[in-house]
Every structure is written in C-alpha cells, then in structure tokens.
C-alpha cells in the first residue's frame, strides 16, 4: 500500500462488500453460537424473517414510505430556503453580518430538544415531524453554504469583473456555479443527519414510521424487528448517498475530472 494511490473499481467493490460479509459473519457467529442470547440480539436469519413478516403482515412498507416522506420533505424545505439564504450571506457581507450570529447560535440548538415544544405547537401530525427535520437541517445548511459561497476564488471573481460582469453576474455566473458542487455535497451530508432527527421524532408521539415501529418492537422485545428497522435506515442512506453522488457526477462533470 502506498499513500493516496487509487484502487481499481473491481478491488473497491470487493473490499467494500468484504467488510459487509465480515460484519454479518461476526454477527452470525455471536448469535448462532448462543454467545449473545436472542433477547438482546437477533441472529441474521431471524432478523430477515422478522423483516419479511413486517413487510408482508404489518404493512412496514407504508412506514418506510411515510418516514422517507418526512425526511425528504423537511430536508427539501430546509434546502429550498437555506441554500439561497446561505448563498446571499456568502456573497454579500452585510447580509452575512445580519444573520450569521443568530444562525451560529441556532445551529447548536438540538432539534430533538424541540420535540416537546413542537408537539405543543403543531400537535403530533406531519407538521411537527417536518418541523423537527427543518430545524435540524436548516441552520446547518445556511451556515455551510454561506461558508462555501464566501470562499469563492477571488481571482475568478476579479477575472469576471474585468470581463464586464457586475454584482448580479458575479453572483449568478461565478459564485453560484463555483459553489454548486460543494453545496450538493453539503446537502448530502445534511440529509444523512436528517435521518437521525426523524427517527427521534418518531420515537415520541408518532403512530407510523420506521421509528415508531422500532419503538413498538421494543415493547414486544423483538430485537429482530428492531434490527431490521435499523438496517432499512442504513440501506436507504446508502441508496440516497449513491444517488446523490451519481447526480453530482452528472451535474458537475468539470469538478470530478
């Protein structure tokens, strides 16, 4: 192994899959051997069986759908407002000076701590779930996008000026395109965090969703179902991550040459 030398695609897939196989093998060894009792940890096959019954008998697909809707919905609202605001803050320093201190403060407020308040304000319906995701992602998006936009290469801005661009052109044709790939990367990260908020939101005062199912399974001490729920979240995360990366490569071929 040499530092920073890339690996081939084939080797990458084998290595990446290898860890999953190893992980499941260790899990299987620990449970099948009886070393960890099923009360604490279900074996891989029992987890799959629990998952199968969840999907076929208990309408778990609906729970998955509603959770995805909450995450993506709250995340999209946060991005739709947060990205433009962040870009404006990064580009125009008075706007940054106005919002930045508050946003920096607000982003340390834990979204989960708002859940009791939000239940009070918005009940236990979808508005409350979306609000939790929104609070959890919005301030992060704003602060990171502002930082990215503020870091636009000054020499490119100056080159644009000497080519006749004015403020509008600088924002539209330099700051935004130069920030775009990193903004997408930020959104990918924040979407990952949004998943952790939604589960917390569903643990309290929810009647549907993956988090709610996990909560229910705890009451029945069904570790198979709980683990299956967690694995599903991981899989969805893996898929969205993959989609995001593919989208980035398609949208910004210049950035990944």
């Amino acid at each position, binding site marked *: 192994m040499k530092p920073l030398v890339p690996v081939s695609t084939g080797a990458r897939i084998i290595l990446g899959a290898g860890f999953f196989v190893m992980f499941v093998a260790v899990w299987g060894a620990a449970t099948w051997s009886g070393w960890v009792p099923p009360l604490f940890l279900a074996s891989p096959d029992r987890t799959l069986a629990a998952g199968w019954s969840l999907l076929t008998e208990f309408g778990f697909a609906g729970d998955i759908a509603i959770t995805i809707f909450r995450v993506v919905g709250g995340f999209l609202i946060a991005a739709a407002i947060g990205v433009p605001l962040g870009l404006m803050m990064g580009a125009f320093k008075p706007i940054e000076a106005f919002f930045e201190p508050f946003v920096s403060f607000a982003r340390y407020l834990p979204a989960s701590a708002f859940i009791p308040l939000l239940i009070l304000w918005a009940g236990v319906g979808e508005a409350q779930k979306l609000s939790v995701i929104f609070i959890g992602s919005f301030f992060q998006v704003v602060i990171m996008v502002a930082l990215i936009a503020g870091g636009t290469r000054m*020499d490119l801005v100056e*080159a*644009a000026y*000497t080519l*006749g661009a004015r403020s509008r052109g600088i924002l539209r044709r330099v700051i935004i395109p130069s920030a*775009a790939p990193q903004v997408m990367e930020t959104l990918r990260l924040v979407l990952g965090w949004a998943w952790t908020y939604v589960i917390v939101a569903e643990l309290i005062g929810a009647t549907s969703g993956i988090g709610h199912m996990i909560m229910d399974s705890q009451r029945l001490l069904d570790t198979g179902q709980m683990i299956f729920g967690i694995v599903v979240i991981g899989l969805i995360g893996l898929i969205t991550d993959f989609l995001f990366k593919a989208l980035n490569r398609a949208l910004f071929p210049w950035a990944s040459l």
Partner: protein
Amino acid sequence: MSRKTLRIAGVTRSFPGRGKAGPTLALQPTDLTVQPGEFVAILGPSGCGKSTLLRIVAGLDRPTAGAVTLDGVAVTAPGPDRGMVFQSYTLFPWLTVAQNIRFGLEERGLPLAEQAAIADRFIARTGLRGFENHWPRQLSGGMQQRCALARALANDPEILLLDEPFGALDHQTRELMQELLLEIWEADRKTVLFVTHDIDEAIFLANRVVVMSARPGRIKADVAVPLSYPRDWTMKTTPDFATLKARLMGEIRDEVRKAAMA
C-alpha cells in the same frame, strides 16, 4: 485597433499595516502615459508593485493617491474595456473553453449566433481548435493561458493588461506564446501593458520597456525598443537586441539586488 490614451498620473498605493507592522508602500507616485496601440512592457524585480499598478489600471484596486484616466475619463472600477490576463490560471473551471471565451460576450447580451462566431474566431487565432468543448482542467498550462488571452480579446478591449501571463510556463511554450501574442498584436494594434521579469521577453514583444525600481516601486527608466515589426525569433540574435538587453540588465541588476536584500 485602440484609440484611447491611458494616463497614469501620480498613482501611489500603500497597504495598511497589520498589528504592529506599519503600512507597506508598494508604489511611489508613478506617472506613465501610454499612446493608443503601444505595447509597453513593465520590467521589475519581484515585489516592486507591478501587479499593483496593473490592478489599479484594471480598476480592481484603488490608488491611495493619483488617478488613472482613459481618454480623460477616470478609471474607478473594472470594466470590459480593460481586459486582463492574470499571473495565475483563472479560467472558470465549470465552463468549457468555448464558454469561457464567450463569458464577456454573454455578459454584454450579444445574440447567441454572434457570440459563437466571435468565440470561434478567437479559438482559431489562439490555436485551440479541437479543444472547444474541453474543461480547463483538461488543458495544459500553455493552452489555459491561450484560452485566457482569447477570453480577454473576444471582448474587444481598448487595453490589454497582461500580468506575467507566461510566467508559469516552460521556456519553449513561453516562446511560442510570445510569438502568438506578437502576431495578434501586429494584426490588431491594441494597447498592451505587459508585466514581466524576463528581459528577453520584454524586448522581443514591446516597443517600449519601462523599468521599475525595487519596492517601493517607481519608474526608473523608460526605454524605446528600436526594432521594427513584424518581428520573429531571429531578432533575439541581432546586435541591436543584445545592446538593448545589456542596457536593461544594467538597469535592473541593482534593483534586483536591492529587492533581494530588503
């Protein structure tokens, strides 16, 4: 063909100090008048304020005192009438070669067909045919600077400001670029302000060489280059060239030493 006269009158620039350090005087009061169509090379040791002077003419920096005027009109902000090629690579990485060249035309709102025609002409003139749809990352340093030159020229500026555009290139590429620039200048006769460290480059290209002192910069010598155009590389071996080179080397040696000791 340029028509406007550039006047740099008493331009001074000092940068405010930070913390305990006092302000840095980068440029002493500097006067320079450049006639339309002149090719002026600015020669000086590192840190003498060449970039600062060029940036002030471009409108990217403001003088602490003095003024720059173009046909009597004060320069206060950057504009498309003063095109610039920078020392560093400044192509927009998200635009292809052709899109980079069209950047200024698009900003001016020219019809698409006209943009394409102009871009195409400069792609041909800078030898970038076949690379129109490449991203800047896919180009060599020499090609990137040719594209930057095409991008500035496509805007049809009054003045071309070139800040060591070939500074980062290897010797051979550099000589090719000099010939290319010369060819373009001989055809268009645009006013050029060309900053360089390289005496040969200054003589080969310019019809006037301005030597700057070590920091704080001021104009130490203003020398006409008595070589006729069109020029080609054989010029570099003529006695006239050698005489002028010896003279400029004398002028600049002391300054480089002073800059190195400072």
